[in-house]
């Protein structure tokens, strides 16, 4: 049969992995190939390959969605690099310092590679019968490049948009401004009103903790350090509740973002607390550390003036708390005032 003739394919830029679940045993590599009349999506495990062909005449749309995965990785790598760097600077013992220098160099290289590759995205190709994710197009720059490579081939097969279609498109565009109001409800998702009380509590506690930590920087007392720890536990609980409550509500995206950033800050501050705990254990006399309470007391006694590392951690926590608390409170109060004005007008 003539059909046995192999089609000539040209490899397209981009390579990604398809997620098979939370913990995937086999790793599926995905890539795209261009033929005369179709695009071939290949999922390869190394032992076998699965193919999906999208003929140019069937492609209706390509949807690109920017994600924050790249930014998250950059933040994570920067944090790891900073920790390794601090280890390399402050730890004693030449072999250990060399080890941490190598680590910080590796994290720096990974951070640079991630930054160079640009923002991340998720790309879907749409036909009349399906919407299929293209994991190989996971960077915006690559996605735009590949779509521009498709475009002439699709135009050749489908032709250009005829004036009626373009007019229709433009009319819709004129009817709806570039940044319209929120659409609601969406496919059964009812948008509830939330005045953001839990957010207010969380941000107020963060702000208070920031002020206390700031005072601790200059005048350290055990009582204030204990109060700060209790506040941290309090705002951690409030943030988790606020994140759960904000789902399917009219809370503005800026407030949502700040709440998620606060959760990230909580994770970082807990990690830094762990670092402080290790430092306090190392600097205390071993006979004084018998129980968990002794470790905690030693940590509370650790003053920012004891070392530059502790001072740095306190300054970082105070600055982040003040910025997040103030920003969050301002945004939530603005949302609450807006809602109150609307209900008065209604």
């Amino acid at each position, binding site marked *: *049969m*003539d*059909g046995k*003739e*192999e*089609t*000539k*394919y040209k*490899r397209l830029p981009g390579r990604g992995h398809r997620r098979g679940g939370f913990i995937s045993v086999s790793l599926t590599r995905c890539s795209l*190939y261009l033929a005369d*009349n179709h695009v*071939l999506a*290949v999922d390869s495990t*190394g*032992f076998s*390959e*699965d*193919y999906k062909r999208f003929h140019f*005449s*069937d*492609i*209706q*749309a*390509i*949807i*690109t*969605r*920017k994600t924050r995965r790249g930014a998250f990785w950059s933040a994570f790598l920067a944090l790891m690099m900073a920790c390794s760097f601090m280890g390399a600077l402050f730890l004693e013992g030449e072999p250990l310092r060399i080890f941490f220098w190598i680590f910080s160099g590796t994290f720096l290289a990974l951070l640079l590679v991630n930054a160079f590759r640009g923002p991340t995205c*998720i790309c*879907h190709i*749409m*036909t*009349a019968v399906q*919407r299929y994710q293209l994991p190989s197009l996971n960077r915006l720059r690559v996605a735009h490049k590949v*779509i521009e490579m498709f*475009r002439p081939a*699709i135009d050749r097969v*489908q*032709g250009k*948009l*005829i004036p009626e*279609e373009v007019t*229709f*498109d433009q009319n*819709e*565009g*004129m*009817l*709806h*401004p*570039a*940044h*319209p*109001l*929120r*659409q609601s409800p*969406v*496919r059964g*998702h009812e948008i509830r009103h939330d005045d953001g009380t839990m957010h207010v509590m969380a941000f107020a506690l963060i702000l208070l903790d920031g002020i206390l930590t700031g005072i601790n920087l200059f005048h350290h007392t055990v009582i204030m350090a204990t109060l700060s720890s209790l506040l941290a536990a309090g705002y951690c609980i409030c943030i988790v509740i606020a994140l759960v409550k904000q789902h399917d509500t009219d809370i503005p*995206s800026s407030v949502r973002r700040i709440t998620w950033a606060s959760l990230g800050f909580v994770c970082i501050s807990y990690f830094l607390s762990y670092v402080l705990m290790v430092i306090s254990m190392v600097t205390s006399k071993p006979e004084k550390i018998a129980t968990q309470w002794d470790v905690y007391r030693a940590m509370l006694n650790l003053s920012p003036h004891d070392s530059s590392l502790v001072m740095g951690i306190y300054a970082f926590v105070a600055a982040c708390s003040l910025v997040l608390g103030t920003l969050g409170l301002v945004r939530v109060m603005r949302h609450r005032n807006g809602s109150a004005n609307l209900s008065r007008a209604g």
Partner: protein
Amino acid sequence: MEEISCTKCQAPILAGYYNSRDLIPCPTCDVPLKIDVFPAFYRGLRPGKEGEALTDDQASCFYHPQKKAVVPCDYCGRFLCALCDVELGGKHLCPACVETGKKKGRIVNLDRHRVLYDGVALRLALFPMIIFYITIVTAPIAIYLSIRHWNSPMSAIGRTKVRFVLAIVISGLQILAWTVGLIYFISRR
């Protein structure tokens, strides 16, 4: 016409957002989106063809004798009506040839899955080297797989047979090492 929805929140996206130059936030979840829409979206699916009724002096379809033949099958040559004509990669096929081609893997465009025997053979030659003892079993299997599937269909994207060659060479060296080792061991006793 199908509607396009946000790939995160699944909210329908209005036509005003299509073919924008830059990323535009989704009206519901604010996620930055770029939607490139092509004419096929507005034109939708083409309606299916119906076979025309046969008149006196016309050739009839092999599968529907009462319908007018419009094209011969590019593989078996049978006359086909518009209903039976399956257009695939610029070729006109009858349903039977499509089915046979799919079963026997003769139509490349219908292939959805392929086993990469060259990759299997190469991994079978390489990975067991970590625990050298099992190469006495895996090396002959790697050579067998390479020879048995030398002419089997390989990756659809086109690969050379270099993996097969490497698998044979590496497995051959492993067998040689075992042979030399055994001869040395026996001669010493």
